[in-house]
């Protein structure tokens, strides 16, 4: 009975965040007065739009590098690819594939930089990658605002600012808009399903499952559990960590391309900024932690987080007469949930250390008693 009680308590502690979200959404849905069909449609759109980005976070967690805030670097690479295809007027699936091909070497390079820096900052990967994201954002803005149209040739004048160089704040991605989502049109009961996008996401999930079983995947798991032990076992720990970040960055780049093809417009200087925060918040809402995340956490998280996104403004409007309140609430929730997860992680680590220390003391005391008894 006590054992069962402890299990239930542990379950609630481990899944506190998704449970709280579920409760809040359950209360907010009837207040928002949205129809079930509308909500299902919205969730399917958002699942197709965001899942790839969130999935890209799984591999660094497996390698013990925590939440990769550096995924914004991949998002930047993806956007550069999209700028080029917009300039060359490449449309459709070919446009998306070409954007991915152009941005892949950039994403590998950014991932390598990020991984190398994070290796120098072992133990503080998350804050380092967060700040690295800000730094690279500055570099990105410098290149796109001053380099494009002057050093990097841009032939389409519509993309440039009126001064003749620098990309406009907003790019219209009509050429690739919804091309992947509508590639295999499926409609069930009036609900549109982006079948092709879900197939891509499913392939990615299979890749992750397969990757975990490979030698490199096992090396990453070993590195994530204990770097010293992995190193002693002959695993090239630093190289493995860099590879995990490179894979994550490249996948985040593809995720951003899928995200923007769904949205149809690109905020040249802002779109990538929120990619990291929202993807990480989604994953944490799904019940993942800094050290443990699964594919299910991704889907549960995306659904719950975006359900809150959709429902909260209308719920706020009907409840208080102010839709803006819901907007504030969702921003507060996304940042709050990341803070909570980080605090919980720190608290758990501290508690584990204390427990290990107490166990060590207990063992020592028992050993001493044993020898005295003799």
């Amino acid at each position: 009975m006590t054992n069962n009680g402890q299990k239930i308590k542990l379950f609630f502690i481990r899944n506190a965040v998704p449970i709280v979200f579920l409760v809040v959404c359950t209360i907010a849905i009837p207040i928002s007065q949205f129809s079930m069909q509308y909500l299902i449609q919205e969730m399917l759109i958002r699942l197709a739009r965001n899942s790839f980005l969130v999935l890209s976070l799984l591999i660094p967690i497996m390698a013990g590098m925590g939440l990769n805030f550096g995924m914004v670097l991949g998002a930047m690479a993806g956007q550069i690819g999209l700028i080029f295809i917009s300039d060359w007027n490449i449309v459709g699936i070919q446009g998306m594939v070409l954007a991915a091909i152009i941005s892949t070497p950039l994403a590998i390079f950014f991932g390598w930089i990020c991984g190398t820096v994070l290796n120098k900052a072992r133990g503080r990967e998350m804050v380092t990658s967060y700040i690295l994201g800000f730094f690279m954002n500055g570099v990105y803005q410098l290149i796109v605002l001053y380099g494009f149209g002057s050093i990097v040739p841009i032939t389409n004048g519509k993309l440039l600012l009126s001064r003749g160089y620098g990309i406009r704040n907003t790019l219209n991605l009509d050429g690739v808009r919804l091309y992947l989502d509508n590639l295999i049109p499926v409609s069930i009961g009036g609900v549109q399903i982006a079948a092709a996008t879900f197939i891509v996401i499913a392939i990615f999930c299979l890749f992750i499952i397969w990757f975990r079983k490979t030698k490199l995947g096992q090396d990453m798991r070993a590195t994530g559990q204990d770097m010293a032990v992995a190193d002693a076992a002959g695993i090239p720990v630093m190289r493995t960590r860099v590879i995990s970040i490179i894979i994550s960055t490249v996948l985040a780049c593809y995720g951003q391309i899928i995200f923007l093809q769904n949205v149809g417009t690109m905020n040249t200087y802002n779109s990538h900024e929120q990619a990291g925060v929202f993807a990480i918040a989604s994953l944490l809402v799904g019940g993942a932690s800094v050290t443990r995340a699964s594919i299910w956490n991704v889907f549960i998280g995306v659904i719950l987080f975006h359900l809150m996104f959709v429902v909260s403004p209308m719920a706020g409007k009907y409840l208080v007469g102010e839709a803006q309140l819901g907007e504030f609430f969702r921003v507060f929730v996304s940042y709050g949930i990341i803070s909570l997860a980080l605090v919980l992680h720190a608290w758990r680590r501290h508690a584990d250390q204390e427990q290990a220390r107490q166990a060590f003391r207990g063992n020592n005391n028992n050993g001493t008693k044993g020898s005295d008894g003799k």
Partner: protein
Amino acid sequence: MAQKGVTANEKKMFIVDLIIIAAFVALGCFCFVTGKAYDIMLENKNFVENGVTFEALEAVNVTIDAQEKPIYLLNGDMAAGNAVGLSHTLKIDVLDESDKAIPDKTKVIKFTIKQLGTKRLLQIPKIYKTGKI
């Protein structure tokens, strides 16, 4: 002996890397060629070439590559169309007084972007009459 084995392995890896890069470059080129969209001007005006006059059609629907929306042109009209890739089909439907396609007056012509030159202008009366770009 062991060193030789490592070198051979490295060579093999290098070749595999090169093949992957070449495959990506080839895929990129393919996407560039087949995915590039071109703006094409369509003109339905009286057109004179080598002393031969091609009279403008009263009303036509022009469809490029079976696109959903045909381009509707009246006598003297000019409009812009869009074509993706290098080779295309142009369908010209001559319309009656109630703007319905006359069944036996439809023509389908194949053309490539190269044929259009730098101007990318299609003279609909000439194309309809001769069946050539």
